[in-house]
């Protein structure tokens, strides 16, 4: 386990992560992960994260070493798509029993690898460690090494047992496994000046294929996608690519950065969600490839494709403008990918509620991203009744969010669209954005809503569940208004930093007590914004409000 904890520290020290670089040494050690709160946690474990990140590799056998829960409860539940092998959708697990727990499961694991290779003959077997065998001390590295030697086939240990942390840590540990055991182990048969790696893209709903035709047209070759629709051999030989795009997500930044360090492959962070982002990404890819020796005409050809695709996309969105102008969208997502749809929604005439940003300049985008990240945290913690009230108060016409809030939104008769990873529609690239606008239109204009919002014939206006929910919320608000002490307690308890679970009162007290003036100071004293960092903006607002009078006083003196 010592090597695992070293890997984790290494991941926490990731210099490519801007948030991380801003932290003090001590904070960095604590890690970038959200502190898990017993009884108040949501989301997957590190094993889940590792599996999410690697399972889209389509021709590999993914073997989970653990009790039935880890694979039996979760297999074949991802929407990634494959253009070839389906073996990635096959559930392999050692399904360890009591005997294995007592006497160790290494023999079973070795035999399991043997069975898989004999029956399915994949180019590689990925072995995932889980909590129970990690506790009992099964050494999957040693088993993988022995099996690789014996069967002449790469067996890749993925050391990411669930209890070491949350999902995003698992994403990074998966990346480390690729860096340690896969990338650079095979030389490619052919290379071209147009070879590009795409890192951190999972090809959900096959959305990579919404963009791939543009690459094909430009002659850009995806040498490896890590990991959507990926092949083992392509990833193993991906160290010869000329450039890399890290798809707008920090999930695999360690892979992108270390490949730059080890193999000199420059990367940029980009996204294919949204029209502007798609164009920016294509431009950046062309620029990097030309910089690394591709013929310069690629730049012009790329501009021509961008101009054509943008014109087509806006023309396709135009007919929706009349129907969607003035419609209010409540966009709530923690997924960094999704904020880039904002421009397209605005272009189609829609307004965003819940954020005060009207236009999407670069700074505004950062602001939206931050606000939405915060809201996504907030909604995780929200009771369904509060969420219903929020939907009602927002007077939104549609809510776009991740799966978790789906059922409350729908039961509140609120049109809803899934924009997180469980979604079944593909929204990438130019065509993807048009699809998104079309889906929104379809959802809002469904005639069903009118019927569903009518009350049952035997109900009066005050006995519907909607009325009861609002009445209950109002009663609570009234009770608070009548009790200033309680109201103050609630105000102070309002959570500002969700990662570290820090309330408004704690932050205000610290600012006053230590005359703090910046976020870093607040972080040192309260730990607020020491997690994902999304609440930095809120902390700034509080600083402005609380410390302003003191500064004014000082100025007066």
């Amino acid at each position: 386990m010592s090597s695992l904890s070293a890997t984790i520290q290494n991941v926490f020290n990731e210099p490519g992560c801007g948030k991380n670089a801003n932290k003090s040494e001590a904070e960095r050690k604590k890690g970038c992960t959200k502190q898990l709160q017993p009884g108040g946690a949501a989301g997957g474990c590190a094993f889940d994260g590792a599996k999410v990140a690697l399972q889209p590799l389509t021709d590999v056998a993914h073997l989970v070493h653990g009790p039935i829960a880890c694979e039996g409860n979760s297999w074949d539940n991802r929407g990634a798509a494959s253009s070839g092998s389906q073996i990635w959708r096959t559930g392999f697990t050692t399904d360890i029993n009591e005997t294995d727990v007592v006497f160790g499961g290494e023999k079973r694991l070795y035999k399991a690898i043997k069975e898989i290779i004999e029956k399915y003959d994949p180019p590689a077997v990925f072995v995932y460690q889980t909590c129970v065998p990690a506790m009992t001390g099964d050494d999957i590295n040693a088993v993988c090494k022995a099996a690789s030697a014996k069967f002449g086939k790469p067996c890749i240990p993925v050391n990411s047992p669930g209890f070491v942390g949350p999902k995003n840590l698992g994403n990074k540990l998966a990346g480390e496994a690729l860096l340690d055991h896969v990338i650079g182990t095979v030389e490619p048969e052919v290379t071209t000046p147009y070879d590009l790696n795409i890192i951190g893209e999972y090809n959900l709903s096959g959305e990579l294929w919404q963009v791939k035709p543009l690459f094909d047209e430009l002659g850009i070759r995806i040498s490896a996608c890590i990991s959507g629709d990926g092949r083992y051999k392509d990833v193993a030989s991906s160290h010869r690519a000329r450039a890399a795009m890290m798809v707008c997500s920090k999930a695999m930044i360690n892979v992108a950065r270390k490949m730059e360090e080890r193999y000199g492959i420059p990367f940029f962070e980009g996204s294919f969600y949204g029209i502007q982002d798609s164009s920016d990404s294509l431009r950046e890819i062309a620029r990097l490839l030309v910089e690394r020796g591709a013929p310069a005409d690629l730049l012009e050809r790329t501009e021509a494709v961008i101009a054509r695709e943008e014109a087509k996309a806006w023309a396709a969105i135009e007919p929706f403008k009349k129907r969607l102008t003035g419609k209010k969208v409540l966009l709530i997502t923690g997924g960094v990918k999704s904020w880039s749809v904002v421009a397209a929604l605005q272009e189609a005439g829609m307004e965003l509620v819940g954020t005060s940003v009207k236009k999407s300049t670069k700074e505004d985008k950062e602001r939206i991203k931050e606000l939405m990240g915060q809201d996504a945290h907030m909604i995780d913690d929200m009771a369904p009744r509060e969420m219903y009230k929020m939907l009602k108060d927002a007077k939104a016409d549609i809510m776009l969010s991740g799966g978790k809030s789906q059922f409350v939104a729908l039961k509140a008769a609120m049109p809803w669209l899934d924009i997180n990873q469980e979604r079944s529609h593909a929204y990438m690239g130019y065509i993807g954005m048009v699809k998104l606008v079309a889906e929104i239109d379809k959802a809002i204009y469904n005639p069903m809503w009118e019927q569903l919002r009518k009350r049952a014939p035997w109900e009066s206006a005050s006995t519907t569940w909607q009325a009861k929910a609002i009445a209950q919320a109002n009663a609570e608000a009234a009770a608070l208004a009548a009790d200033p002490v309680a109201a103050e307690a609630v105000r102070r308890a309002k959570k500002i930093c969700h990662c570290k679970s820090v309330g408004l009162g704690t932050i205000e007290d610290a600012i006053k007590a230590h005359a703090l003036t910046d976020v870093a100071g607040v972080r040192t004293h309260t730990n607020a914004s020491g997690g994902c960092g999304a609440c930095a903006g809120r902390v700034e607002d509080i600083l402005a409000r609380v410390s302003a009078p003191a500064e004014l006083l000082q100025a007066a003196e």
Partner: protein
Amino acid sequence: MAKVTIGKKACAVNPLKMSQPIGGSFAFLGLRGAMPLLHGSQGCTSFGLTLFVRHFKEAVPMQTTAMSEVATVLGGYENVEQAILNIYKKQKPEIIGICSTGVTETKGDDVDGYIRLIREKHPELANYPLVYVSTPDFKDAFQDGWDKTVAKMVEVLVDKPTSIRRDPARVNVLPGCHLTPGDIEELRTIFEDFGLEPSFLPDIGGSLDGHIPDEFTPTTIGGIGLEEIATMGSASWTIAIGAQMKRAAEAMQARTGVPYRLFERLCGLLPNDEFMTFLSEISGRPVPAKYRRQRGQLADAMLDAHFHIGGRKLAIGAEPDLLFDVASMLHDMGAEIAVAITTTQSPVLERMPCAEVLIGDLEDLETQAKARDCGLMMTHSHGRQAAARLKIPFYRIGFPMFDRLGAGHLLTVGYRGTRDLIFALANLIIADREDNHQPTPDTWLDPWAEHQAPIDSAVVAPLH
């Protein structure tokens, strides 16, 4: 009749089985105002939660003690305490149901002891309903987790009766985990039509039937209430459905003296005749005309469908009680149960109407279905890949069913439920014949081929 064998592979491929703590949590979801809590790392909960949400298409309450590596090694007392306190303060459930997992069982956390300490330390929790069940992931399966949990609920939540007076109309119903919310609703109607007042423990019909709740709560939105469970000792009968519920029924009898009757099956003509006869006896009422008509409809459905179902070779993968119920009904319709795969031991398995039952996985189901030339596959949604590869019709039964809507409303119980199931299966077979097996001028070119090959169902060729 059947030989029960346990698979010998080191690697389970395409698991049929799901873990015990998920089955246990499922039982807690049938209580009103409940919050299931898994004592394990947060992934244990998150995977289970995702399963339920995808199956029922509902928000499902479920929490975790979020065990870290360090907490696991040092013991989980603080995590259990914090989790209970946080849930108690925030979601304010009427009951917290706790299941252990593989990781905390490997360490050997004494959760019963923890709970005693927590009650001492926090007087507000002294009498707060907390039910704990030990459900290690590395033993048994989903169905076992459910039955252990229901038995534990009976032991902890049912009051010992203070008088021996029983309410003749009141019956306790202990349904197995293979029944859907729709099955529970069907049974409720049947009981009520006999003038009986059933208490279902657990009652997922009230909580997971996909209704719009009267009030938004962060806990379960329906199910049986604690006060109703407490008074189950005043019922005149306990009716257990599925062999798995024997343990809970015996616990009820031991605690309250209420006698029980176990119905291992409620799918098919004869099992329902038995059920109706029993209800008529205990209620003192004749079988209502409605069910007499339904019996006729089922009989007619069997007549119409036996042309299609009779002689079909079936491959079924399901947990023991569901497997036994559905396979027996189809066997009684003339189908051949060529392949039967299940997840865990049960006394019903050796009474299965087939030669062999294998405790195995969906790879076994697929290879054997291929070798034995099965013409219909029945299992949970994960069988979709196998059925597609074999190009045979596929009917989803059991949990999870994540790639179709309405999982909560599928019926297998009662005359009506059996009738609808038979129609659905026969229609699948008819459609398959029309789509894939239309005769062509070449169909009978080599008419004796299938009669010359030696028929040996024991020979199983490898899949790939």
